[in-house]
């Protein structure tokens, strides 16, 4: 169908439809906005956790202490064995002298306590181990523990797995959010459009009886639905910008070790996701609603 001349007409009609049912339009925009901001915030929390978990992994917080019966040379030779373990991305050998220095640095002005220990170093040789994939963290820790010559391993297995668990829960929660609120949004949009079509059923009947195609009748409602949902996306984006960071920061401010993800780092992906989701909601909402009155 040749509709290139009709876009202005469709647009005008669509905008008019929005104002005819002002309250319903307002309600559906509000709900879609809420849906997007809630989901967006949960996703931001997830990004924060993922960042923190990755951080923990890269800190190299697996410390593997070498059996004291091994000579310094043999202890240094373990590096090759450790590097060969699956999922190990890096290994740093901290011999006893370096260990002492690091300890002194940590103690700062109290380091004098350690004076004189250089000649009778009580520390053990030690390895710091980094992993590639934090997901296999526990297996890697186990493999390091089982390496011959390693006496003892310190790893924040619990902290990492807790965070992972939290992230998984948030993942499920945000998915549920998206699906539930998405459904509510589609329902609301389709009801708004249904109301608009019901209001205009006589008009639609006349259009069809004088030869309008379904596409022609549908176009203004389709545009109405798109305008509503994209408006919601833009409002949600602005809201997320203003309050999103504040929410995440206040929720996590007590947990100083967290690497808080900032909305500003994800502006484009967020805008894309919001508008994309809104478009899907808009299209589904309008498709669900207008079939009924087209049968003339």
């Amino acid at each position: 169908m040749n509709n290139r001349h009709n876009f202005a007409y469709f647009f005008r009609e669509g905008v008019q439809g929005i104002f005819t049912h002002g309250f319903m339009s307002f309600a559906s925009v509000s709900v879609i906005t809420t849906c997007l901001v809630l989901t967006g915030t949960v996703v931001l929390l997830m990004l924060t956790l993922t960042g923190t978990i990755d951080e923990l992994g890269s800190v190299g917080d697996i410390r593997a202490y070498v059996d004291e019966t091994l000579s310094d040379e043999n202890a240094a030779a373990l590096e090759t064995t450790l590097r060969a373990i699956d999922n190990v991305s890096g290994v740093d050998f901290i011999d006893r002298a370096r260990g002492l220095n690091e300890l002194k640095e940590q103690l700062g002005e109290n380091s004098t306590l350690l004076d004189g220990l250089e000649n009778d170093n009580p520390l053990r040789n030690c390895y710091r181990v980094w992993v590639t994939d934090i997901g296999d963290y526990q297996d890697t820790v186990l493999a390091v523990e089982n390496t011959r010559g390693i006496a003892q391993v310190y790893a924040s297995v619990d902290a990492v797995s807790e965070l992972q668990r939290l992230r998984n829960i948030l993942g499920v929660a945000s998915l549920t959010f998206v699906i539930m609120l998405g459904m509510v949004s589609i329902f609301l949009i389709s009801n708004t459009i249904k109301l608009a079509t019901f209001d205009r059923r006589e008009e639609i009947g006349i259009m069809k009886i004088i030869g309008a195609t379904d596409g022609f009748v549908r176009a203004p409602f389709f545009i109405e639905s798109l305008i509503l949902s994209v408006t919601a996306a833009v409002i949600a984006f602005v809201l997320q910008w203003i309050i999103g960071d504040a929410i995440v920061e206040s929720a996590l401010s007590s947990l100083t070790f967290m690497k808080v993800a900032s909305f500003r780092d994800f502006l484009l992906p967020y805008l894309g996701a919001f508008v994309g989701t809104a478009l899907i909601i808009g299209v589904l909402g309008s498709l669900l609603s207008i079939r009924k009155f087209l049968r003339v």
Partner: protein
Amino acid sequence: MIHLSDVYQSYATGTRALQGINLRIEDGEFVFLVGPSGSGKSTIIKLIIAELLPTAGRVTVNGYNTTKMRASEVPYLRRTIGVVFQDFRLIEKKTVYENVAFAMRIVGASPQEIRNRVAYVLDLVGLAHKARRKPTELSGGEQQRVSIARALVNNPSLIIADEPTGNLDPDRSLEIMMLLEHINSLGTTVLVVTHEKELVNQFNQRVVAIDGGLIVSDRTGGYYQYEQYENRYKHPGESTPEPTEQPEQPEQPEQSDEQQA
């Protein structure tokens, strides 16, 4: 071309509106369809524009078989026909201008074409000065003329008018009929449903008479033959021995009542 063959139409209520209609109207013809109220005239129109599908029989219009065509083809059939509906079917929220322009938007006409053509047809039906009014602000006759303008605007190959002069004064009615005849002389097929005997008799055209869902007369030249039929079969009790000699006499009041309805 319109071809109804053995067409039966029953409504959901059980009313048998048409009971075996055979009617053929060739391209370029001018045909009056007459008959008493409730005889099935509007039902025939609904079948022609595929607003209804026949309960039995076949309806072919401008190359489309309405019982066999796909739903997506229906709009294209309707675009070959300009219909003046008995109840106008104007969109109340739109202005007169928009109502007429709308028919052109549907077919994807350019804004330029729409401006020129709508102005032209509104002028043709004498409503150029009311282009900005809404249908509810017009008289019945004016609404009827908007409906006529809309039927003409796309230059359809077939124009169907259901009581196009029902709300018009005699001068206007004659004017509209002459307009339709003129359009017919340019090659458009025209089918006019009417009660107005005097009007029909002023034109020497084919008259198809229908009663009780059946065609009871089909010949050229005047309402007269139909009335003869009506006298003979409708009112067998009343004796009207020579209807041919007193065509104007019987049932005059009843006729004008129907026109008001």
